[in-house]
C-alpha cells in the first residue's frame, strides 16, 4: 500500500462518525490532524468526497484557523507562549533565543526535521510565566539562558529514542 493509500484509508475510517453530523468539518479536521500531526492533502481529498464539501472550502477553513497545519511539523514541537502575562515576563527574549539556537523562524521546522517552532497565545498557566511546552512537557519561568540546555536535553532524548527503535 502506498503512503497515499494508507492516509486515505485511515482518514475514511475516521470520518464514519462525522458523516451524518451537521457542521462536522472542523471536528473531522481535528481528528485527522490528531492522527497525522497535520492535515495531508491526500486526507483532504477523502474529506471532500465523504463529507461532500468542496476542496476550496476545506482549504479556506484550514488556512483560517491557526491550529491547523498543512505541512508535517518536526518531531519535537516547541510551543512558546506569547500571551500577555508571558510577554511582560520576558517571552520575547525566550523566543529570540530559540530562534537563534535552532536557526529557524516562527512556524518553521529545522533542516534536520527535528524541531518545529511555534508561538502560541496563552496556555492557561500564567502563574508559571513565561511558559514553553515541548511535546507536552512544560517548562515554567523560562529564561533565554536555559534555552541551549533544553535543546540539548531534547536532542539527547530523540537520539536515545532512535537508538531504541
Amino acid at each position, binding site marked *: 500500500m502506498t503512503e497515499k493509500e494508507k492516509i486515505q484509508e485511515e482518514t475514511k475510517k475516521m470520518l464514519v462518525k462525522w458523516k451524518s453530523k451537521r457542521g*462536522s468539518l472542523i471536528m473531522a479536521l481535528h481528528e485527522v490532524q490528531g492522527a497525522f500531526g497535520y492535515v495531508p492533502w491526500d486526507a483532504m481529498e477523502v474529506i471532500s468526497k465523504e463529507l461532500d464539501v468542496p476542496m476550496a472550502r476545506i482549504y479556506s477553513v484550514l488556512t483560517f484557523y491557526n491550529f491547523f497545519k498543512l505541512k508535517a511539523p518536526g518531531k519535537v514541537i516547541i510551543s512558546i507562549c506569547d500571551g*500577555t502575562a508571558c510577554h511582560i515576563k520576558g517571552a520575547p527574549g525566550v523566543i529570540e533565543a530559540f530562534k537563534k539556537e535552532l536557526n529557524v523562524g516562527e512556524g518553521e521546522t529545522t533542516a534536520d526535521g527535528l524541531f518545529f517552532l511555534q508561538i502560541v497565545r496563552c496556555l492557561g498557566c500564567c502563574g*508559571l510565566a513565561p511558559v514553553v511546552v515541548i511535546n507536552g512537557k512544560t517548562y515554567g519561568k523560562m529564561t533565554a539562558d536555559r534555552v541551549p540546555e533544553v535543546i540539548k536535553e531534547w536532542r539527547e532524548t530523540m537520539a536515545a529514542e532512535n537508538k531504541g527503535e
Partner: protein
Amino acid sequence: MVELSQDQIEKLKALGRTQKETLIKLGEQFKEDIKKYKAFIYTCNATSCHSGGASGVIDAFNEALATAGLTDEVRMVCTGCMGLCASGPLARVEIQGRKPFLYQHMTPELAKKIVQEHIVPALKQGTDVTANLPEELKKNELSLDLPFFTKQRKIVLRLLGHSDPENLGEYIANGGYQGLMKALTMKPEEVLDIISRSGLRGRGGAGFPTGRKWSMLAASPLVDGEKFMVCNGDEGDPGAYMDSCILGGGSHAVLEGMLIGAYATGATSGWFYIRAEYPLAIQRMELAIKQAKRYGILGRNIFGSDFSFMADIRYGAGAFVCGEETALLASVEGNRGTPHPRPPYPTQKGLFQKPTAINNVETLANIAPIIVNGPEWFSEVGTETSKGTKVFALTGKVKHSGLVEVPMGTTVGTMVEDIGGGTSSGKPFKAVQTGGPSGGVIPASEFGLPLCYEELKKIGSMMGSGGMIVMDADDSMVEIAKFYLGFTVDESCGKCAPCRIGGYQMLQLMKKIAAGEGTKADVAKIKEIGEAMKKASLCGLGQTAPNPVLSTMKFFKSEYDALLKDGNEPDEKTPEAPKPAACSVNTK
C-alpha cells in the same frame, strides 16, 4: 447532533421517574462512602499546577499512603483549580476536627514527608500536630488567612479545589443538579423571571442581561422543531484562563446551567464550543456529558418530565475572533469564523439559521446556584447594576498570581494590593489592564475604581472575560499597547475594511513610534484611525481593537511624548499653513 439509540431511549422510558431518585441515591452513596475517611488530601491538578508537576506529587502521595497503610483512612482527591497558581503545585490537608492546612510549591519528596510527619502522627496521636511540624514542612505552609483567600467570595469556584471534578456522586452530594430538579418543578416563565430578577449579566465581557437574552430565545418559535443553546468556551484572550478552569474543575455545573436555560427557553439541543488548546476542559466536559447521558440528565424526558435535551462538544481551532458570537456560530457550523452583521440576532436566526442563545461558561456556572438560592441571594452581592461575583485571572507582575472570584464592585486596589499581595518585583504598580486586547489600562492613580461593567467602560477599558494583567514601573505602556494591537491585527478575520486596513495602518504607526521615529502627526493619525475603527468595524474585535492604544495614550501620554521625535516641541510650533499660491497647481 448526538442521537440516542433506540435501545437507550427504551431504557430511559422504562426507568421513568426513578432517574431522579437514582441520582439522589448516587449522592447519598458518596456521602456514605467517605464516612470511613479520617483525613483528606486535596491536590490541585488544574493546568497550572499540572504543568508544575502535580501528577508526580499525586503519585508520591498515593505511594506514601499505601506504604503507611492509610489508603482506607485518607482520601486522596485530585481537584480543579485552587486559585493561587503562583505558589503551585498546591495541596491541602484536612484532618477531621482540625483546621485545613495548605502546602505550596509541592514536590514528590515533600508529599512523602507530609504523609510521614504530618498525617501519620496526627491520626495516631489524635492531636493537632501543625504547631510542631518539622521546619521543612513549616516553610512550605501557605496561610489560609491570607487576604488572597479571605477577601474572595466564591459562587462559581465554590467546588473547585474542594472536590473531585470527575465524580458525579460528589457533585450531587454537594447540591449538584438540585437547580435543575427545582427548575423542572417550575414553569419556564418562572425560571426566566428568577434569572431576570437576579440581575445576572453575561460574563463574557459585554454584560448583556442573561434573563433578557433567554426571554428573547423563549419568544422565538422553533424552526424545524429546533432551537439551540451554545456555550462560548473560546477563551482566546491572552492572559485569561477562567473558563478553562471552570470547565476543567466544574463541568457539571456548566452543563446544569445550560440545561436550566434550555428548559426555560425551550431549546432542544446544545453545543459546548471549547478551545482545542484546552485538552483538560474538553476531556472533563466529554466525561460530564457521558455521565449525564448515563443517568438520564441528558436525553428524552429528563427526570420524568416533558423536557428533552441533548448536548455535544465542538472544538475551537485557534481564532480569537470566534469569541464573537456570530463568528462562533459560523465556526460551530464548520466554516471560517467570520462574523456577520446583526440584526438578525442569533436569538432569532443563529446556528444553522435557527434561534440560538450563546452564553459564556461563567454565566452558565452561575445559573444553578441562583435557582437553588433565589434571585435575592444573588442580587445582594455586587453593585447597583452589576450583580454577583466575577472570576478574574490575576496575572503579570503581581505576587499572588492566580484565579480569584470577588464580589462585583471590589476595587482594583483591593484586587492587586490585598488579594494580589503587591507586585512580584517589589517595584511600584504602574497599571492594570482588563479586557485583554479589547480593553484598556487602569493607571495606579485610579486604583480606587470599583470593578463593574459601567465603571470600567467609563475609564476606557471593559470588564472583558476576566483577564487582569498587572504591570509595574518597568513596563513600557507603548510596548504593551503595541503588543495588543499586534495581536488583534493578527487575529482580524479580514472581512471588513476598517478592522483589516485600519488595524494594520495603526500598527505600522505604533511600530514607528516605538522605534523613536514617530511624530505628533502620527499620534493624531492613530487617534483618527482608532475612532473610525470603533464606529465602522463589523464586530466587537475591530470595534474594540483601538482601546489598548487609545487608553494608554490617554493615561500615559508622557511615555508616548518621550518617544516622539518632535515630542518636546510646544504645540504652537506646528508649521504655518502654506500660503495659497495663485494657480500654482495644475489647473489646466
